[in-house]
C-alpha cells in the first residue's frame, strides 16, 4: 500500500499511464464524432504525456512534477493534449516545494489540476474530459494512494458513460468523449504502477501514428538546412562546478540562447536537461562537458523531421558562424537586428496546400492538421525561425488553436497574435489578406478576424462507418459534406456531395469559392466540379487549387 509518493514513484506512474494510453490509443482515436478517419485524441494525449515522462527523478516530488509538466506543456498537441498538460501543471503547482506527499496532499494537488485544466479553455464545455477529470477527482480520497485512485477511476468510468447525455453530438455519433476516455486510461495506468503492474515504459517515438522519418531525405549531396534537434541530460560534476545544488543554470540557458534556437533548459537537482536546435551539436556537447558528464544524448537531423515541408533556413550564415565560434568570442547578436516587422505562421497539410500558403506569402508553414497536430514546441521552433517583431499565427484547426495559444503564452521573443482560424480554407483566406504594409498590427488582426468570420468552409470526406447525425443518414463509404460542425449531406458520389453542400450554404451569396482538391479525387473530376459550380453560380468566382490534403477530398471555402 502506498502512503507516501516520491518523485521516482510519480514518474513511474506517469510512464505507466503513458504505456496504458499507448495500448488503447487507436481505440481512443476511433471515438470520433464525425464518421471519418481523422480522430487523433489518443495520439495527441499520448505524445503530450510522453513529453513529461523524460523528466529527471531527482530532487523532491515537487521539482519532478514541475519538470514533467514543463515537458508536457512543450509537447502538448491538440486540445486534449493542452488540457492534459494544464492538468499536470496544476498538479505540479499543488506539489510545489514538497519532497514527498501523502494521499491527502496529492488529492489537493489533483484539485489544483482540475482548476488549471478548466483554465485552459475560455469556454469550458461539459461532457468532455474536463467533466470526467472534475467528477473523478472529486471522488479521489482514501488512506492510501491505491484507494484514492480506485475511487477516482470508478467515478471517472461513470462520468465517461454520462458524457453522451451531456453532449448531444456524442450521443448522435454513438460514442463517449475521447478525451475523457484518455484521462481514464492514464489514471488506470497510474494505478497499475501503484499496484506493481509494470510494463515496458512508453516512448513517444514508437507511439506516434506519424510516418517514420525518411532517411533518404538527407542524401550524400544534401545541404544541412535545418540543423540538429539536440537533447541531453547532463549530470553536474562537483569537480567541475562545486556544489551542483548551488549551480546557476541561467548561465547555460543564456549561452544556449546565443549559440542555438528553441532552447529549453532547466536543472533538477544535479541534472540539467537541455533541448536546443543547432547546426553544430558537437560544439554544444563539448562546451557542456565543462560542467558535467552526459547521462543521455539524442541528436536528430531536423531535415528528416521536416519531411515534405519547405521551410526557410533558420540558420543565417551569420548565425552559423556564431554557433561555430568559441563562446567566449561570440558576439551576442541582438534579436531585433535579425527581425522583420511581421511574419505569418500557419499550419497546413498536403503538398499543394503548403505551397499555396507559401505562395500567399506565409513565412513559416508548420506541417500538420487534423490527424497530425503539431506540438507547442513545433510552434515555438517556427516562431524562432520566423524572426519577426510580430507574429500572426493561423492554426487552421479548432483542435490546434489551444496548442497555438499555449505556445504563444510560452514565447517571449516576439508579440504573438493567434488568429482563430478553425479550418484551412478560412486560414488561407485570412493569411493571404495580411497587408504587411499596414503599420498597426491591430489593424492586421482586425482584418484577419473579419476575413475568418466571413468565410464558410465545407469539407468533403468519405465516411468510415454508418451513422445518423444532424438528420442525415450516413452509410459507410458515402461521401459526407460538413460545415459549421454539422453534416450537411451524404451522397454516393463525391462531387455530388460537394455540390449539394455548397448549394445548402448559398454559394450564390458569396463572391468567391476556393476549392482545394485533396489527394484522392482525379483532376478531371475537380475540374468538372468547378465547371458545374461556375455554371450554377455565374456571379461567384470559383478558384481551383491543388491542395493535395489527406482525409478531405475537397475543402471548399466560400467568402
Amino acid at each position, binding site marked *: 500500500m502506498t502512503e507516501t509518493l516520491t518523485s521516482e514513484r510519480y514518474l513511474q506512474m506517469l510512464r505507466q499511464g503513458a504505456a496504458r494510453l499507448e495500448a488503447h490509443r487507436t481505440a481512443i482515436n476511433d471515438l470520433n464524432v464525425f464518421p471519418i478517419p481523422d480522430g487523433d485524441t489518443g495520439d495527441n494525449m499520448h505524445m503530450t504525456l510522453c513529453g513529461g515522462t523524460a523528466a529527471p527523478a531527482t530532487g523532491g516530488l515537487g521539482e519532478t512534477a514541475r519538470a514533467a509538466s514543463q515537458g508536457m506543456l512543450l509537447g502538448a498537441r491538440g486540445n486534449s493534449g493542452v488540457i492534459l498538460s494544464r492538468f499536470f501543471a496544476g498538479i505540479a503547482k499543488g506539489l510545489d516545494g514538497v519532497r514527498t506527499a501523502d494521499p491527502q496532499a496529492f488529492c489537493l494537488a489533483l484539485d489544483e489540476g482540475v482548476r488549471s485544466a478548466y483554465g485552459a479553455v475560455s469556454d469550458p464545455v461539459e461532457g468532455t474530459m474536463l467533466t470526467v477529470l472534475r467528477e473523478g477527482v472529486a471522488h479521489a480520497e482514501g488512506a492510501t494512494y491505491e484507494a484514492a485512485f480506485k475511487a477516482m477511476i470508478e467515478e471517472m468510468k461513470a462520468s465517461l458513460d454520462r458524457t453522451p447525455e451531456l453532449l448531444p453530438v456524442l450521443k448522435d455519433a454513438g460514442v463517449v468523449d475521447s478525451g475523457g476516455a484518455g484521462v481514464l486510461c492514464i489514471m488506470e495506468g497510474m494505478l497499475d504502477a501503484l499496484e506493481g503492474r509494470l510494463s515496458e515504459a512508453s516512448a513517444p517515438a514508437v507511439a506516434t501514428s506519424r510516418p517514420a522519418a525518411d532517411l533518404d531525405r538527407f542524401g550524400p549531396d544534401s545541404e544541412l538546412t535545418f540543423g540538429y534537434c539536440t537533447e541531453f541530460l547532463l549530470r553536474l560534476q562537483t569537480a567541475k562546478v562545486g556544489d551542483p545544488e548551488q549551480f546557476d543554470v541561467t548561465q547555460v540557458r543564456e549561452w544556449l540562447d546565443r549559440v542555438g534556437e528553441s532552447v529549453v533548459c532547466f536543472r533538477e537537482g544535479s541534472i540539467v536537461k537541455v533541448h536546443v536546435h543547432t547546426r553544430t551539436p558537437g560544439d554544444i556537447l563539448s562546451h557542456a562537458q565543462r560542467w558535467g558528464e552526459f547521462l543521455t544524448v539524442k541528436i536528430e537531423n531536423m531535415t528528416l523531421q521536416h519531411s515534405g515541408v519547405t521551410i526557410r533556413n533558420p540558420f543565417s550564415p551569420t548565425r552559423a558562424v556564431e554557433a561555430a565560434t568559441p563562446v567566449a568570442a561570440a558576439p551576442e547578436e541582438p534579436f531585433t537586428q535579425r527581425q522583420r516587422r511581421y511574419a505569418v505562421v500557419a499550419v497546413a497539410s498536403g503538398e499543394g496546400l503548403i505551397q499555396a500558403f507559401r*505562395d500567399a*506569402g506565409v513565412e513559416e508553414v508548420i506541417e500538420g492538421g487534423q490527424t497530425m497536430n503539431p506540438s507547442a514546441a513545433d510552434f515555438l521552433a517556427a516562431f524562432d525561425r520566423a524572426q519577426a517583431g510580430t507574429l500572426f499565427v493561423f492554426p487552421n484547426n479548432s483542435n490546434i488553436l489551444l496548442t497555438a495559444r499555449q505556445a504563444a503564452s510560452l514565447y517571449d521573443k516576439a508579440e504573438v497574435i493567434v488568429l482563430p482560424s478553425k479550418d484551412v480554407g478560412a486560414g488561407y483566406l485570412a493569411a*493571404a489578406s495580411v497587408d*504587411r*504594409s499596414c503599420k498597426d498590427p491591430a489593424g492586421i488582426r482586425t482584418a484577419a478576424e473579419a476575413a475568418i468570420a466571413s468565410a464558410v468552409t465545407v469539407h468533403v470526406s468519405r465516411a468510415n462507418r454508418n451513422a445518423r447525425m444532424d438528420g442525415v443518414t450516413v452509410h459507410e463509404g458515402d461521401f459526407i459534406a460538413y460545415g459549421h460542425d454539422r453534416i450537411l449531406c451524404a451522397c454516393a458520389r463525391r462531387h455530388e456531395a460537394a455540390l449539394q453542400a455548397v448549394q445548402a450554404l448559398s454559394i450564390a451569396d458569396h*463572391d468567391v469559392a476556393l476549392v482545394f482538391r485533396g489527394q484522392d479525387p482525379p483532376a478531371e473530376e475537380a475540374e468538372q466540379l468547378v465547371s458545374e459550380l461556375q455554371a450554377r453560380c455565374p*456571379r461567384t*468566382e470559383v*478558384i481551383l487549387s491543388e491542395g493535395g490534403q489527406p482525409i478531405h477530398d475537397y475543402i471548399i471555402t466560400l*467568402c
Partner: protein
Amino acid sequence: MLTLFTDTDTDFTPRVAAEYGFKLISMPYSIDGETFFPYQGYDEFDFHAFYDRLRGGVLPTTSALGEDAYLRCFEPEFAAGNDILYIHFSAAMTMTFQSMDKALAILKEKYPERKFYGIDTKGITIVSYLITRELGDRLKAGMSAEEAVAWAAKEVDNFSQYFFADDLKFFRRSGRVGGLAATMGGLIGLRPVIHMSQAGKMESLGTVKGRVQVMERLVKYVEDYGDEIKAHRFIIGHTDAPELARQLAGMLQERFGTDLEIEFVCTNPTAGSHCGPNGVGIAFHSKGRLQ
C-alpha cells in the same frame, strides 16, 4: 514636313501605326538578362506565348531607353529637314524621357531650326492608345502640330483608364502603383482596381472581391464618370484574357446599348510585364480623371 512618332507603350502596333504614318519607338523588356524590343524587325507579336511565360513564373523587368536611342530615332528626321511630333506614354512613370530631353538638347544645338513637339498622354497602354488614336484621326484630317499640342493640353485629362490586375506580384516587384496593399489578394479572388491619375501615375482604388464584381466596378466607373462615350472610341485592353474582355464588353453594351462600339487591344509586353496576365481594363472619354 512633320514626322509622327509614338512608342510601343501606347499599345500601338506596326499595323495601327501605319494607318496614321507613325514611326514606332520600341520600349524594351528583359527576361533572364536578355533584352527584347517589341516589333523591332517583325510586325506580329505572340501575346499568348508571352503571357503564358508569365503564368509559368517568369518575372520580366523593363528598362529606360538611353539618349543614344533617341538620337538614332530623331536625328535622321531633323537631318532631313523634318519636324517631329512625338505622342508618348506618361513621363511620370519612367526615366526614359530624361534621356530623351538630353538627346533633344544635343539635337537642338545641331539643328536649331527644327521643331520638336511632345505630347504626354499621361498614361500607358489603352488610355495612351485611345488618345494617340484620337490625335491620329485629327492629324490625318489636317490638324497641325501646334493645334494637336493645344488639343492635348485641354483633352488628355478627359480620357480615363481603369483596370484590374489578377496577380499583385508583378506590381509589387515594379513598385509602380501607389497605395497598393501588400497582400497576395489575387490568389483569393481579391483584385486591385487601378486608375491613371491626373499626374500620369497608376494609383490604387482599393480591391474588389470576385471576377464579375470587379468588372461591375469598371462598368460603374463608366456610369459615374463617362462623358459622350459613344462620340469617342471605347477601348477594352487585356493581358491575354480575351474571354474576360468579351464578358466585360457584353456587360457594357447591356448597360449602355449595343451601339457602344468597343475596340479590343492586347496590352503590350513592356507594360504587361508590370501588370501580369489575366488583367482587363477600359479607357473612355470622361468628365475628367480622378486625382
